């Protein structure tokens, strides 16, 4: 059986903390370890921060939807926004030996989640991320 939850927030960075709290509970219920939960929460937080910075250019009143579903052996998270299509080259993960501020968010998402797929169009952007659920027992 699959269970799902949708969160709707505006693109206000002060709301990210509340989003993280809800997501932490979802991951806890799904059975991940504390270490894994912290990493998943970080990956989703980075994705939402990228929406605010790049798609909405720090405008604070734009909609962000975070759809989470748990089932069929997977945690699936989809992040939707109505912002400008993002030039993926501009937010691609940087080489880790290049020590400079910025560019770490995409790297963190990709290193934590099993799948990260971005789709952008004039209608908006969607970022899909998934991670295998922990094995029971």
């Amino acid at each position: 059986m699959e269970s799902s939850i949708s969160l709707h927030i505006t693109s206000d960075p002060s709301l990210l903390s509340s989003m993280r709290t809800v997501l932490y509970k979802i991951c806890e219920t799904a059975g991940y370890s504390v270490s894994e939960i912290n990493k998943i929460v970080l990956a989703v937080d980075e994705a939402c921060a990228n929406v605010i910075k790049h798609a909405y250019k720090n405008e604070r009143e734009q909609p962000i939807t975070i759809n989470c579903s748990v089932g069929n052996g997977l945690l699936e998270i989809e992040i939707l926004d109505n912002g400008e299509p993002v030039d993926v080259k501009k937010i691609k993960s940087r080489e880790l030996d290049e020590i400079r501020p910025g560019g770490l968010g995409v790297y963190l998402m990709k290193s934590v989640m099993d799948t990260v797929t971005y789709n952008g169009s004039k209608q908006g952007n969607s970022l899909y991320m998934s991670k295998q659920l922990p094995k029971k027992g």
Partner: protein
Amino acid sequence: MSLEIRTEKNDQSVLLHIKGEVDLYSSPQLRKEMMEQIKKKAPLILINLEGVRYMDSSGVATLIEGLQHCKKYKGRFALFGLQENVKEVFALTRLDKIFEIHKDRASATNPSAV
């Protein structure tokens, strides 16, 4: 949520005690306080992260900026008191090899004595 930042200073060092979550919302506050101190070119800048229960890449980026500015005037920039999840962010990004990271204030202040 905003951060609580307390500053302790003497002739040789500046210690910033940070409490809260360092994310896209609060990292500009950390940057402002940190850069104000770095501009004064203290020989040692210490960042106490014991009270930081969450840090994202914007927090890490802020600390990279601090480290780079400090290096320019040949100052020391050291972190201590990282909670497990914050340590994990530094490990994931392999920045634990770049930053001077210590367990506590004593070892951060005087690493050769430990």
